[in-house]
């Protein structure tokens, strides 16, 4: 099992249902910078005409997770399914992981006195088969699934679409798959020219190799 998420980001209307459902589901501490998931908005004008791109985001649960690599106490760890988690009882708040994360996906939960982050709602997978953010989304941006299961809805989708990652160059092998819009105009508007576009065929061997290498560290 290797859980991941595809994001049909062009569906996003920035309604923040995902953010709210996440906070309710996981009891995330309230506060402006205490977010397990968020919607990044890029807006501007082109020759005076406004545009806006929305990138829903959260922890990428990277296969080569730098936050786990730097953690001096092993509080940051990877569990079965390739989900990156934090054990609050082991966290010493050195904030190394927060520095290491290229996505700024971690924050301090003052109530637990530990670093907190997205868990892919791992407590929920068995019963619902998906995360709170996917379930609640009005326009169904997200699709959660298992990369190792060729029959999963996720892999079926990735086989038919092209996709890209945020900050792929940082080499962390992230697992949020942003689906390239079919509409060329919007694709050009919302994807940087130096972003690498992948297909399932070119992506799969790299990830399988990395997963095989790292999954021995995954805690049960």
């Amino acid at each position: 099992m290797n859980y991941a998420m595809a994001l049909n980001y062009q569906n996003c209307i920035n309604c923040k249902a995902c953010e709210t459902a996440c906070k309710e589901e996981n009891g995330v501490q309230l506060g402006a910078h205490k977010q397990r998931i968020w919607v990044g908005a890029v807006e501007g004008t082109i020759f005076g005409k406004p545009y806006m791109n929305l990138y829903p985001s959260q922890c990428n649960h990277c296969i080569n997770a730098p936050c786990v690599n730097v953690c001096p106490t092993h509080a940051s760890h990877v569990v079965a399914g390739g989900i990156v988690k934090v054990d609050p009882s082991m966290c010493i708040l050195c904030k190394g992981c927060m520095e290491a994360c290229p996505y700024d996906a971690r924050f301090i939960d003052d109530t637990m006195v530990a670093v907190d982050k997205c868990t892919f709602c791992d407590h929920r997978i068995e019963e619902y088969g998906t995360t709170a953010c996917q379930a609640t989304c009005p326009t169904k941006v997200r699709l959660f699934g298992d990369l190792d299961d060729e029959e999963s809805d996720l892999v079926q989708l990735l086989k038919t679409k092209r996709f890209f990652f945020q900050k792929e160059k940082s080499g962390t092998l992230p697992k949020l798959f942003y689906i390239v819009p079919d509409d060329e105009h919007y694709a050009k508007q919302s994807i940087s020219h130096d972003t690498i576009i992948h297909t399932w065929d070119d992506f799969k061997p790299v990830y399988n190799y990395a997963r095989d290498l790292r999954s021995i560290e995954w805690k049960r």
Partner: protein
Amino acid sequence: MKVEISRRRFLQSSVALSVLGGTVLSSTDIMASSSQKEKLDNVLMKKVPTICEMCVNKCAVIAQVQNGVVVKLDPNPYFPKSKNMLCARGAAGIHALYDPDRLKYPLIRDGERGDGKFRRATWDEANEYIKDKMVKILDEEKDNRSCIGYCAGEGMAEHTYKSFMADKFGSTNFINHASICLQTAVSGYALTIGGYGQADLNNAKYVIMGGANRAEAIVTPDTMDLFKRTRGRGTKLIVVDPRFTNTAAHADTYLAIKPGTDLAFVLALTYQVLIKEIYNRTYVKNNFNGFEEYRKHIIESGYTPEWAEKITGIPAKDICRVATEFMANAPQSIYYQGRRSTFAKNDFQLRRAQAIFTALGGGIDVKGGIVFGKKLPLDGHEINIPMYANAKGRIDKKAAAIIGGSGSWIAWRNMVVEGTTPYPIRGLFVYKQNPMLCVPNTAKTKQMLEKLDLVVVIDTMPSDTAMYADVILPECTYLEREDPIKSFAGVEPSIALRQKVIDPMYESKPVLEIMKGLATKLSKPLWEITKKYDEDVQEELEGLEKDESEEDYYEENGFNLADSFEENQEHINEEIFTKQYGKEAWTLLRQKGIFYPNMMKNFEKLDNNSYNYYPEDKKNYTVVKLENENEAEEIDTCVNPRDIAEVRRLFSTPSTKIECVLASMQKKGIATMPTWIDTDYVEVPKGKFKFISGRHAQFTQNATQNNIMLLELMNENFIWINDKDAKLLDIKFGDMIEVTSKVGQVKIKAYPTAKIVPNTVFYIHGFGAKSTGLTFAHRNGASDNEIIEDRIEPVFGSAIMHDTIVSLRKV
């Protein structure tokens, strides 16, 4: 006769269904050791399907309850309307339930009106207080029940409240959200095509949204359907708006328009398709009434795209292109109806023009167009309505051409304030509405409330209006009550049930019980007043036979006000539902929260994001009666939507056709056809701005203003100003701006942006509460209705929301 046993049986089945793992707790279980605690948690974990009330959409929710505490609200996949989604507000419903500022027990005013001093009272004391005042008022007004007005916000329990105030108590003076909401749009469509309908955004190929903002003002299923199909995935979306909204961000074409000029845009589209003869001629021949007259009117009035360009600011070539594309995609082309408020004085004509324009392509009552759908039948609850000879008609009926049962808020209030009512209005009951924040010109609403002898507020929160109450009665939230069962019309119709998730907290009660308590208290004393002044009743009492007592007359003729509130809501729902669909369906409804025929057979999960509800051939796209019934079979087999559209239908309008000309409007002084009147348009003087308001996806009007989870997402509103305008005035982001209109003044922080047209400013509705009872909402940003002028449009008396001129000053 209703037998007690049915209620008991219901209670048994409900408990068995809602407790997962179903074992009955004994006292030994409670004393269980800690190793068994986990097991116990599971037993105490309940999942109750119910219906959300964080906004008016009524999406289906599954509430998780752990040890009696609601811990999470999840979407319920069974509901075809909300399709397994719950927006930010829906998910944050828990904080409406556990809001620390909630009204917890009845309160009686203990100071000057409006100064916010109240004392705690028992329900009996509160009802007694209301009774004393009501008796005095009605005695003085000689049993004219209409001297007590009443208003309500939209909701599933609104009907219960109304059935007491209108049917039992007998007041005609009802005002609800319609005249500050979608009255003109709903009626414009109803009078033109026979119904407001629903835009079939799941199948439409071309959609023009003028002023509507489905990304930020979420409507189910429209929002979910639309944004999965934009950007080359089936629907071409044209957004016409003074603001570049989140909806506009998804559009293929965004057309920035000057506020208040939408009618000119639609008229020019109409002109273009008429002059180019690109409308559906067969459809028009079969289904239009007064087409020639309308055609002549549009062309002779010279509503050319060039004419519209000068008014709207939208280039003529864009208007021509949109008109051509719209008709090329027809009948699966929709000029989206829109909801919300009246933009300008011509709003009724705008909605009519939109409806006729859509119809010119044939997109009415056809898949991918505006559809009417079916409704699963449900009987109402019978009420024994008493007749009061002295109850007078509503005060505002002459305020506009057509004043319906829900009135004109502004006209009604202003008459009270100005003392121009035909008889005195002495009191007001307010249920689930907050006129201090929701009706334009707050200063006048305040004056009205100060003038009344009795103000009773029924709410869950100490709103700005509650601060002006004599008595506040705490209602429980939607998670603590069962509401009247509701049937939802649509292409995929269904019935949904709001069930109680937990018992009402504190001393709060559902509105049914509040009405019951009040009715019991008021019934006899008010009966005495009726006997004293009502000549019809006096006459009939004198004529009673020997074996008939006065008590019998009182009971039989509905003067016992409490008689319609004797049964509890669960029992009423069960009776209404099982009569139509049987016991088994009732069990299913309580278990799943939703019912529609063959649900368990046809409901299918495709993946984590999509579900099937009805088979395609059972969806109700085309429902209007056909002139020639034989053609119904052709519709089933027809593959070309254009052919389906062209069939002659019997629309529910007077002529059974699309009404281009409303001759009956003439004598009321209203244009019979959509007409642009230059003098109706409010120009923006140099150096000033037109103020517009609107919504966003994290708050519902002012109802959610104190919700901490939602305040996390946005904790105050900002005033949008065009960045070039801002530069001239040296206004930067975050600067405090004083906004002044003819009726009020507010202070609010600035947000200069290219996302709004010049000479126009905007801020979101629902902020700026002044009630000291609202810890988190208190003085966050500004309230729009404090500066919006109280003007009404001439057809329904609806509040014109976007014609206020303001000036700005950096402070």
